[in-house]
């Protein structure tokens, strides 16, 4: 056991922290308040090579590990969870399935543009009636000669409308559950794909989340990812490492909230002294710090298991559950330290609370994480 970051991981942290502090921090409030999709930040991240972090060097990426990926997402999320989820979805669930399950031809055709950020990626599994129960999705894929025809709809798709590449799960055997689920890579400009207007949300305002409609959408058979019926397994594997990203996002949100709470507590004077001198504030700071630290270690543990080729489904689910519940608690406590000011949208505390809530819901609700964990703990 040696928990020191490698030189490479330290380098990613330096690069990502610099990017987050110089580029993301000044833009964070406007992205949220003006509901702007931060394409500029996505472009800057790609110039730094961060969007191709998990893509092998042979296909134009940086070929780095999941610990580095988690570090990147955390650093961005300290200031803007909206920006973090955009790059997270692109890097992990939007791109990684092609790295893991794509043929050489598919990797050559898709990965270089995803790695260099010319194309932004999205992942489409959830449907209006298939959320936690993802295996019972209704979108169909019917083989017709050298292509498939997709019909149906998807909902809650991050980067919808902004992405140029969608990994879409559809069934080739309607009514068969997981057995018929098949994965496809669908181009954003496919004429059979329509994107609904972005939803108005509680938080994550800079991230576009919308519905997708497939109406006789023709997808070349060569863009089928994996075999027919392999889609559910691909989706679950994608979500396992996607959860590392969401955990990292939650850690960043909580760390940012803690940093601000500490700075405020040291500045704010009441009863003739900084409120940091009061034990009730000290206790809050201590509990927040412990949760953030534990969540980060859990996230890095899941990531390093993934990198070592060890099973990590349980560890990723635990990290996701713990980190996102912690982010909710820590952002609320940090707001409380700010008192009335925390409730104002002039400070980032309220925004972090709004953003943190999403983390408990997406990439598998925390209730689904508990189902996964209980299954693992009870041994199937």
């Amino acid at each position, binding site marked *: *056991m*040696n*928990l*020191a*970051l*490698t030189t490479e*991981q330290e380098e990613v942290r330096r690069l990502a922290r610099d990017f987050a502090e110089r580029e993301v921090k000044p833009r964070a409030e406007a992205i949220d308040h003006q509901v702007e999709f931060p394409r500029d930040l996505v472009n800057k991240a790609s110039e730094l090579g961060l969007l191709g972090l998990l893509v092998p060097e042979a296909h134009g990426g940086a070929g780095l590990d999941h*610990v580095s990926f988690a570090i990147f997402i955390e650093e961005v999320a300290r200031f803007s969870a909206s920006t973090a989820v955009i790059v997270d979805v692109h890097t992990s669930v939007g791109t990684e399935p092609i790295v893991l399950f794509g043929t050489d031809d598919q990797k050559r055709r898709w990965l270089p543009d995803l790695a260099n950020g010319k194309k932004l990626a999205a992942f489409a599994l959830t449907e209006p009636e298939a959320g936690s129960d993802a295996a019972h999705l209704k979108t169909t894929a019917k083989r017709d000669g050298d292509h498939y025809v997709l019909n149906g709809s998807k909902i809650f798709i991050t980067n919808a409308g902004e992405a140029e590449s969608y990994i879409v799960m559809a069934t080739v055997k309607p009514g068969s559950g997981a057995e018929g689920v098949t994965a496809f890579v669908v181009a954003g400009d496919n004429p059979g794909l329509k994107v609904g207007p972005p939803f108005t949300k509680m938080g994550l305002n800079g991230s576009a989340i919308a519905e997708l409609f497939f109406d006789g959408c023709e997808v070349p058979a060569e863009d089928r990812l994996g075999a027919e019926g392999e889609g559910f397994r691909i989706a679950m594997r994608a979500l396992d490492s996607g959860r590392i990203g969401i955990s990292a996002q939650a850690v960043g949100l909580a760390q940012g909230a*803690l940093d601000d709470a*500490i*700075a405020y*507590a*040291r500045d704010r004077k009441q009863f003739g002294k900084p409120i*940091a001198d009061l*034990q009730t*504030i*000290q*206790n809050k*700071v*201590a*509990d927040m*710090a*412990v949760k953030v*630290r*534990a*969540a980060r*270690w*859990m996230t*890095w*543990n899941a990531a*390093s*298991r993934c990198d*070592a080729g060890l099973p990590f489904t349980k*560890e990723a689910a*635990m*990290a996701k*559950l*713990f980190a996102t519940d912690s982010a909710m608690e820590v952002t609320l406590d940090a707001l409380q330290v700010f008192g009335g000011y925390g409730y104002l949208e002039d400070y980032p505390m309220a925004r972090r609370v709004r953003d943190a809530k999403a983390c408990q819901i997406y990439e598998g609700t925390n*209730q689904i*994480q*508990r*189902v996964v*964990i*209980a299954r*693992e*703990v*009870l041994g199937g």
Partner: protein
Amino acid sequence: MDFQLNDEQRQVQAMVHDLCLERVAPRAAQIDASGEFPWDIKALFAAHDILAIPFTAEYGGVSGSAVTLIVATEEISKYCVTSSLILGVQSLGSLPIRLAGSDAQKRQYLPPLAKGDRLAAYALTEPGSGSDAGGMQTRALRHGDTYVINGSKTFITAGSVADTIVVFARSDQDGGASTRNISAFIVEKDMPGFRVGKLEKKLGIRGSPTAQLFFEDLAVPAGNRLGAEGEGFKLAMRVLDHSRPGIAAQALGLAEGALDLACRYAKERHQFGKSITEFQGVQFMLADMATQIEAARALTYASGDAIDRELPEINVSSAMAKVFASDTAMRVTTDAVQILGGYGYLRDFPAERMMRDAKITQIYEGTNEIQRLVIARGMLKERD
């Protein structure tokens, strides 16, 4: 970044686990019921070099790695926290010598402790000074080549069975209340003036004797002073920074033992015509217990790794591990009793003992309230 245990750590883990499953687990309920120190387990641990784990080979030990000690403590605590304290106090009591002892002191005192021929204890707390350790009243006044110690200590784990006890006392002549006039001394139980008072009756860890110690004109050679005069308080705090991961490891193992028990029971228990594991109410309790344990394990191992890598902020990482793992042990053992229902409340099952044992981990080696102060100070100072 490597979270995997190395070969030494894996071997120790497997050896301690197998040994405890076979020899300690069947004794745990008896040890609790009798409230007697388990000399047989002490002999077993000595024979298998488990008591040698805190010590480096140079002084007769087998490891010296904080992570290895954590792993061993965790394995013992899955079955019997009282037994884990034999190793825990051997480490705690020897830490002042390992951290501040001269080479001669180390050569004299550490090998018999590593071998398990002698037992160690750590005497800091007094009736009037617990969290406020700097307020201690025990005095050690210098007379030529000796110090004469007068006073008393309380809550001393293994105090009645220990041979070598590190005692903290005020060593200045005027007895002012500064933390800068506290010194540490190696005291041996056969020194005249050393007396063991009553053994406490406790909620849990009943086989681990908790003693009052009295010092009446106890003369200690000046050569038994650890470090410089007046540096005892700093040493006491450093010792606790190094030992708290051990309490975290106890709590972690205890929680793991409780979760394992709850899972085994839940799988067998049928109500409403099916296993209670099929109810989400039970599944989610188990998932939350497991997740809290995972978080506690991450913090605990990381605190050991920080010691092994000699990082500067081990006071914070150790306090974080201790507070989180012990709070987790309390919650998880309480939930384990709950999952076993009425059976969990009976002495026939180990769940209630685990819950009683868990409580102490939130209190000793610095209450969790003190841990939060340590962490908050560290966090609020970081940006100075």
